[in-house]
């Protein structure tokens, strides 16, 4: 699915956010990227999502080296990746359904097929009854679920989430984690950046720990709840 080889990310101001990260992620894996603030979690996720390119080293997604891809090809690659942002990045002048439909419109889908897929995605996150509502009327947890619906509407094989439960209380966070659990069970590769111990303990998966832009640890976690 994904291979990173000595990946370095240096910003124009000289700050080196990632320093020589090497790792592979297999299809269907659940990966948690952990570390303190400023450790490089978000930078690593942006690279994995094809939003940025490495300064040095190589990062291949589905055997495509993102450093060699043009801007348009990189955009097309991102269509196969479901992205969940901590700050949602939703359009508040569009309805819930219109927000969820965006990736499909970009991919060129329209009509009944688009409607059907949007309905399925909203049903998966429990927002089908609010399809015509404005996102302004949704709670924090619902906004995050809408963000997830938008991420999965295109049936991606990879979902990347940056602090998906960051601003949510325990009840909402648990519902969100259940959704990720269902994706993983369906064979989707899920990568979650988090510093929340509850999230990690709720789900079983691989834990990649970052320290000051370097790989500080790579281990497996177990969850009794998850195993059941």
């Amino acid at each position, binding site marked *: 699915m994904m291979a990173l080889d000595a990946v370095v990310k240096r910003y124009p101001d000289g700050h080196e956010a990632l320093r020589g990260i090497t790792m592979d992620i297999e299809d269907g894996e659940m990966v948690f990227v952990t570390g303190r603030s400023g450790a490089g979690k978000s930078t690593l996720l942006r690279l994995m*999502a094809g*939003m940025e390119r490495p300064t040095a080293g190589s990062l291949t997604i589905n055997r495509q080296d993102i450093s060699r891809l043009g*801007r*348009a090809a990189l*955009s*097309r*690659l*991102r*269509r196969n*990746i479901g*992205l969940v*942002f901590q700050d949602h*990045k*939703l*359009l508040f002048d569009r309805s819930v359904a219109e927000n969820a439909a*965006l*990736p499909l*419109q*970009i*991919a*060129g*889908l*329209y*009509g009944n097929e688009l409607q059907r897929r949007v309905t399925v995605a909203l049903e998966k996150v429990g927002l089908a009854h609010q399809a015509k509502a404005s996102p302004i009327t949704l709670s924090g947890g619902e906004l995050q679920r809408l963000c997830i619906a*938008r991420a999965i509407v*295109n049936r991606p094989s990879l979902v990347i989430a940056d602090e998906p439960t960051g601003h949510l209380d325990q009840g909402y966070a648990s519902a969100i984690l259940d959704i990720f659990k269902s994706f993983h069970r369906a064979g989707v590769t899920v990568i979650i950046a988090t510093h929340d111990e509850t999230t990690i303990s709720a789900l079983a998966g691989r834990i990649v720990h970052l320290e000051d832009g370097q790989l500080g640890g790579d281990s497996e976690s177990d969850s009794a709840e998850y195993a059941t």
Partner: protein
Amino acid sequence: MMSWLHQHASAGRLALRRLIRSPFANLLGVLVIAFALSLPAGLYRLINAADSLGHNALQGPRLTLFMAPDADGTAVRAVWDALAAHSEVLEFRYISNVDALAELKANPALADVVATLDRNPLPHTFIVRARDVSPAGLESLRNMVSGWNKVERVQMNGEWAKRLAALLEFSRHFTHGLATALAVALVFIVFNTVRQQVLSARDEIEVVHLIGATPRYIRRPFLYSGLLQGLMGSVLAFPLLQLGSHLFNREVEPLSTLFSLDFHLRPPTLDECLLLTLVALVLSWSAAFLSVSLTLKRLR
């Protein structure tokens, strides 16, 4: 194919929605575009009408050859033969001094004056139509016949048409300059409107970019926005042109009648309308493309 068409239709709808979102500012922009299109178009049509008037006048420019008072029948015959043999002479008419005096006597207003004359003061005259009616052709013929024996004076009666042609040439250059300046103004208006739209849609652009929109997909609604502005401006330019023509014709009609001239502005033809629309679309699309590309580059 259907998917491609659907994406374009969506981009068009989005562009229209963005234009409607700030109707007053965009309507003002469209009005300015309409004026920027109709003003030079109107001037070109005025120049063409004046040009056609001058051209009609030049259809019959003539040279009038006045013979010397002492020119006798032999001298007149020699000029006659020379004119008949000259390749640049299309046709000519001879008026003898006797016929000219008889014509004056036939005029009741001049009859009394003519009766007091003790001798015929009028010269023998030839009225010549040249084959080449251009100012240069006429000038060349005049210089030639001026040197003939007993030809005292040659008068060219197309002088005013020559001056009109010079004035029209200047007006044409002036209109070219004005059209260029207004085209730049049109580009600037569309550029600025699209730039404002890109900046106010910054968040939306970021979102669609993150979830896989290509640069072409992101640019498309803004290009449609530019095209729509150009299209609306050109559509509005037609009634403006019509109104301008109507007002002009109303003012100039008494003058035309007085001078028996057929001088009026006709309604724009379909070809002219299509050309104006095409110019507006090309300019507005180019301005939108430039604007969205530069602004997106800056945002990146």
